[in-house]
């Protein structure tokens, strides 16, 4: 595309930058309110147990305690009531049950009761005084075990034991496809439960006012989702709840669900004061939603020409305590990078006695891509074809039909593969023995969902942007840049503010890689409305019919005014200009990402050093390339941690034995090299600037790329992630 932009593609300083480097930015835990008190949550020590009795009297009697709540304080959830937060539907009873257990606890860490007290120490002391009698039940911790006959059952009302949902996609003739193949490889790989690992723990402060209004301040990826979910759990109308999103210290999908918000609200109702709840790191690990562990089996057949003739996948994902294991997207993405005629995909959403899982960057896709991309690596080796070349021969393109039905619009799979092939790293030699290079690619859909924005023109020629997308990685700026581009201004002429749910139109989560795309569209549309209104003002001023606008200047009949000059005259030409737009867009553009990774394995200790990494991704159009690179680097680092180290290490009783950063061991600065990035730009026809969204696809390739690199370094095909020293040494 030959479009040239003034602002898009540049790297302005982010609008919230000064606040965030000086410590002024207020995150959820930073909030201080008059008369505010503090809470603590009591959690189950059992992975599966019946609650026989809860006695809160000792806690209530402790001096300094204001309120204690249990599930009994919440309105009951009708058995099959579904709530829709615009992000897919949720069973209210699951949501409610996860917030405070009633009847049974389903995982170690399941919240059972909460206390509000004069300070957090007293609240913790009080929580420890709550007596709970449990009848422990046998627990089941992995999907294959939970699917086996005779497994302990978590929910009596699921029709198929612990299998909450079955998914099946079928296309073509599988048997005929495999019959045409000359090489067939089948592998089964397991991945462990992992956590998003955002550094800021979940938090929520709530005040239930005597007029019935509930004000919640929290760190959330979606203030409206937090509002709607809290209202549903508390059984109040959504308009009774106002959520003020505080700055958010990372989310990656893990801060979409609510955990503390309704509990803080209920404590506040009882105490008559604002109540703040902040999770400890262990609470974050055991009480929020990690992403599913899985078992995935993939079988792929290829003919002599290196063309895939058939592919079959079987996926079982651990949902944790309540249904919803992201196996749908896992199944839809397992072969999504390739043009394959004969496909069968079966997926199982399996409940187990672990925390209820939630999204983590392209949820479900890394688990399944691990299997596909390692099998393809093995096939490439068998055929003696370069692994990227094998992928190129099968790459999905415009018109390719995915197994779940839809055909692709313009998609950048070939472009990403070509960029990988041409990259400096792919063409550099490996440094020596025990080293290996792996490649893999992955796909993510990205999302649309509703967004709203308001632009108001200031008399000094700047523009205020009001929006509702919480900013986790520079979205204030990527949105402001789109407004600036339309209005012919500089990014710094736009003043973005993220407001509460009473103050802007409904806006979906900052998730699904959607903010720069969808909220960007709302901003773009509002900016175009501003241009039209400003043109009308200039027309009135000059008494002409037609005014043109380009590069920030309005002109007609040889007269012209800059945006700022006209902005100064708005008062005299009809009053202020302020335009709002809402969107619920189609036109979402999926993103392909690829990774090249070089590793060195110490044969004595099994320790892996990451030597060099190149992350490649189709951004559609990179609005702010530095933050696009940042997304790619961050997703890559998380994926490498997932591949090599991270896991929920559970004992036989379902207790997480490594619930601290010391033992969960995410990558540090010392574990990683610089992360090279190549931004591919295949514009998305569904967005005026071509944006696709970049937050997620980058975490799909690393698991497989690391596995492939380890194979080249060690000669071993490992079948379990994390591929830590014990796995590598076969211990």
């Amino acid at each position: 595309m030959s479009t040239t932009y003034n602002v898009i593609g540049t790297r302005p300083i982010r609008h919230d930058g000064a606040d965030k480097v000086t410590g002024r930015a207020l995150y959820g835990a930073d909030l201080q309110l008059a008369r505010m008190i503090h809470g603590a949550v009591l959690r189950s020590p059992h992975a599966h147990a019946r609650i026989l009795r809860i006695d809160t009297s000792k806690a209530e009697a402790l001096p300094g305690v204001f309120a204690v709540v249990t599930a009994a304080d919440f309105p009951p959830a009708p058995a099959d009531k579904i709530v829709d937060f615009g992000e897919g539907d949720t069973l209210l009873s699951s949501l409610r049950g996860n917030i405070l257990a009633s009847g049974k606890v389903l995982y170690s860490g399941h919240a059972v009761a909460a206390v509000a007290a004069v300070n957090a120490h007293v609240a913790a002391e009080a929580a420890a005084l709550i007596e709970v009698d449990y009848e422990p039940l046998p627990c089941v911790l992995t999907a294959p075990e939970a699917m086996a006959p005779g497994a302990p059952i978590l929910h009596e009302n699921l029709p198929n034991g612990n299998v909450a949902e079955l998914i099946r996609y079928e296309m073509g003739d599988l048997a005929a496809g495999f019959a045409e193949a000359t090489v067939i490889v089948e592998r089964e790989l397991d991945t462990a439960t992992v956590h998003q690992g955002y550094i800021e723990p979940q938090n929520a402060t709530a005040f239930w006012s005597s007029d019935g209004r509930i004000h919640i301040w929290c760190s959330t990826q979606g203030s409206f989702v937090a509002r709607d979910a809290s209202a549903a759990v508390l059984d109040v109308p959504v308009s009774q709840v106002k959520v003020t999103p505080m700055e958010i210290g990372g989310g990656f999908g893990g801060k979409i669900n609510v955990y503390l918000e309704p509990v803080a609200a209920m404590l506040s109702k009882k105490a008559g004061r604002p109540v703040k709840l902040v999770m400890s790191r262990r609470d974050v690990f055991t009480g929020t939603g990690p992403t599913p562990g899985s078992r995935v089996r993939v079988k792929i057949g290829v003919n002599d020409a290196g063309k895939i003739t058939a592919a079959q996948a079987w996926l079982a994902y651990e949902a944790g305590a309540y249904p919803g294991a992201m196996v749908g997207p896992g199944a839809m993405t397992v072969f999504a990078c390739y043009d394959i005629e004969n496909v069968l995909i079966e997926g199982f959403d399996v409940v187990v006695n672990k925390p209820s899982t939630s999204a983590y960057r392209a949820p479900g896709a890394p688990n399944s891509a691990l299997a596909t991309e390692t099998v393809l690596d093995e096939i490439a080796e068998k055929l003696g074809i370069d692994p990227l070349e094998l992928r190129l021969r099968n790459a999905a393109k415009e018109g390719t039909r995915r197994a779940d039905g839809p055909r692709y619009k313009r998609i950048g799979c070939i472009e990403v593969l070509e960029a990988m092939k041409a990259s400096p790293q792919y063409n550099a030699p490996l440094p020596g023995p025990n080293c290996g290079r792996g490649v893999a690619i992955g796909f993510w859909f990205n999302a649309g969902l509703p967004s709203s924005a308001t632009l108001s023109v200031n008399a000094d020629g700047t523009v205020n942007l009001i929006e509702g997308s919480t900013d986790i990685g520079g979205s204030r700026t990527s949105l402001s840049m789109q407004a600036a581009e339309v209005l012919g201004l500089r990014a710094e002429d736009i003043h973005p503010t993220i407001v509460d749910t009473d103050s802007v139109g409904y806006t979906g989560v900052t998730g699904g890689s959607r903010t720069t795309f969808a909220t960007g569209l709302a901003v773009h549309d509002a900016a175009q409305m501003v241009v039209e209104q400003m043109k009308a003002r200039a027309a009135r001023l000059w008494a002409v019919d037609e005014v043109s606008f380009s590069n920030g200047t309005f002109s007609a009949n040889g007269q012209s005014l800059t945006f700022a000059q006209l902005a100064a005259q708005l008062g005299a030409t009809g009053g202020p200009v302020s335009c709002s737009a809402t969107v619920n867009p189609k036109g979402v553009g999926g993103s392909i990402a690829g990774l090249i990774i070089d590793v060195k394995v110490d044969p004595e200790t099994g320790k892996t050093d990451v030597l060099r990494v190149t992350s490649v991704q189709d951004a559609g159009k990179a609005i702010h390339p530095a933050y696009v690179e940042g997304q790619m680097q961050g997703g890559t680092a998380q994926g490498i941690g997932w591949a090599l180290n991270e896991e929920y290490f559970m004992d036989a009783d379902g207790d997480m034995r490594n619930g601290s950063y010391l033992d969960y061991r995410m990558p540090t600065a010392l574990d990683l090299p610089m992360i090279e990035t190549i931004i591919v730009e295949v514009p998305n026809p569904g967005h005026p600037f071509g944006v696709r969204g970049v937050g997620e696809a980058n975490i799909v390739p690393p698991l497989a790329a690391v596995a492939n690199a380890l194979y080249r370094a060690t000669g071993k095909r490992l079948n379990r992630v994390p591929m830590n020293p014990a796995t590598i040494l076969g211990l």
Partner: protein
Amino acid sequence: MSAKVQVQTTINNEPVEFLCEPRQSLLECLRDIVGLTGTKEGCGDGNCGSCTVKLGDRIVTSCLVLGVEAAGESITTVEGLAHGSTLHPLQKAFLDHAALQCGICTPGFLIAADALLQKHPHPTEEQTRFWLSNNLCRCTGYDKIIRAVQAAAIEINGAAQ
């Protein structure tokens, strides 16, 4: 609840006096008593570095230091890095290099990096990574943080010889 203790310290070059319980961490005292919430809590057990402050001439994870231990000491937090409205070169470099995404880890990294540059005016990439390995960042993959610190080193101390 135990009796409160009076603690006299210097925070960001200003004398500060606060009352705390003996069990309260320095992090808690800074955030909840003194009101300096720029220093963040990511784990409370010394493993994330987001609560890093300078205490005397060393850097500490303030969640592992008791408030009472700060008596008579001088403390620097992220709020004390800038000179008036002029950002510290590290702060500016973090913005120029897009070295923060969510920003929750940034205060800890800035304090740790400031101490690094005082000890090693021109740290190598390896030294920088080693020094900052007590600070977790989950968003950036560290690349842009390392680059920002090295750019700030040049800004502050000139190009290495």
